[in-house]
């Protein structure tokens, strides 16, 4: 006996979120206001993503949650358990098996397919917020396509550091119209947003905004002709699986300041190790 309505939220709330998702898909990159609900977890733990997931899950789905790429962190485990309990959906840690993937701050390394939906948890959906605190003004700037300020911010990066120092939540332009915050994913992941075969949905619970990128939509990272966008990562191979092409976390491993670099996508790293790939610090095979 399950004492919750399917996927926790009541039907009227789900209808409201579903209408916002449809308008979001019809206006790619535009932030649709929605009446975010209290969820049984604090703001900042992915309440926006959870509400979007609750509105789109069906009993036949296989659900995966990642937190900074990892399936085994507290946040990922609790959200996965939450929907196991309230929606009865199957869950997985394998990117290829999932139909709905909720993510905090990463896009999986394994390319997504048309049969998958990626749900992002977003803390601050407004890319212009740190440049202009007033919502009334940022809304006007979006309506007038007045994005000069964002370019000034990137230019100031260049004049101060010699290159664009913004390394995560790197602003993108969607289908040549709205400038959008891709959530705090590393800029390494930005190219994966472009023309993705999967539907990408973004939910910001505290800020009460939902936005979306339909499949095969042009998503361009902002840059300058003489300072083109570069998807950077730590210049190392993974120390556990040897991958040269994945985004890495830097981990301090002792008091002497020794470090290791490991894939932030735990499923990608584990499947590569299962296939026999080894890195610098891999344990010896028994």
């Amino acid at each position, binding site marked *: 006996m399950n004492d919750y309505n399917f996927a926790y939220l009541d039907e009227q709330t789900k209808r409201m979120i579903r209408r916002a998702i*449809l308008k979001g*898909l019809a*206006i790619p990159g535009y932030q649709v*206001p929605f009446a975010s609900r209290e969820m049984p977890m604090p703001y900042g733990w992915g309440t926006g993503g959870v509400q979007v997931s609750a509105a789109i899950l*069906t009993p036949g789905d296989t659900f995966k949650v990642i937190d900074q790429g990892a399936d085994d962190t507290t946040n990922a485990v609790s959200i996965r358990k939450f929907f196991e309990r309230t929606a009865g959906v199957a869950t997985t840690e394998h990117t290829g098996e999932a139909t709905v993937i909720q993510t905090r701050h990463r896009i999986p390394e394994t390319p997504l397919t048309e049969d998958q939906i990626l749900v992002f948890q977003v803390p601050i959906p407004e890319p212009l917020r740190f440049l202009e605190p007033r919502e009334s003004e940022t809304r006007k700037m979006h309506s007038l396509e007045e994005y000069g300020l964002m370019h000034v911010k990137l230019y100031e990066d260049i004049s101060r550091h010699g290159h664009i120092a913004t390394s995560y939540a790197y602003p993108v332009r969607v*289908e040549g119209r709205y400038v959008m915050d891709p959530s705090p994913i590393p800029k390494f992941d930005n190219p994966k947003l472009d023309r993705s075969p999967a539907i990408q949905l973004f939910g910001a619970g505290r800020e009460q905004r939902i936005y979306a990128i*339909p499949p*095969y939509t042009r998503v361009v990272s902002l840059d300058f002709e003489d300072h083109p966008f570069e998807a950077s990562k730590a210049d190392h191979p993974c120390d556990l699986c040897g991958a040269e092409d994945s985004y890495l976390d830097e981990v301090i491993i002792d008091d002497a300041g020794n470090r290791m670099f490991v894939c932030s996508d735990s499923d990608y790293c584990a499947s590569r190790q299962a296939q026999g790939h080894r890195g610098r610090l891999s344990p010896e095979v028994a």
Partner: protein
Amino acid sequence: MHSEALSGGFADPPIQSAQAFRKVMEAMARPGTIHEISGAEPPVPLSQAAGSVLLTLCDGDTPIHLAGGHDTEAIRDWLAFHTGAPLAAASECMFALGRWEALKPLSAYPLGTPEYPDRSATLIVECDELAAEGVELSGPGIEARAALSLPEVAAFRANNALFPLGLDFIFTCGSRLAALPRTTRIHAPEAC
């Protein structure tokens, strides 16, 4: 109120509306694709697909405009019982329902505002046929080209030109549906 207004809703609303919404979302995210949707058994001339869309998306917060032959007592009663949605004039609706000829002119519906382009109407257009052929489409959600049997070309082209304002369309025929968001560009043969 006739007793048939009481039947024909979802038997298991949380599950059926979740499944129906995924079809609507896939349709809206991938213009030109056709999806089977069912669950509702609404009074004629309302199609199963349109009935299921209304049950999935509409409630007391969403004024509906019924156009032409869909403005019948049976449909009004059915909607009132199953969704509680208020009826409204075209200029104040969030959803409009009817056949293409009855829904026109499109200038009657809210297009959104520059600051809130999401405050625009969604039109549910009942069609006699629905096929992935005819007018060529491109834009977000479409890898290269898609095709859809649209009732006409000029109105959708004009709607696309309004972006980011504009209307969004759901086409229904029997138990099938397709959608056309405002972002879709229309490539018509020269004749149109």
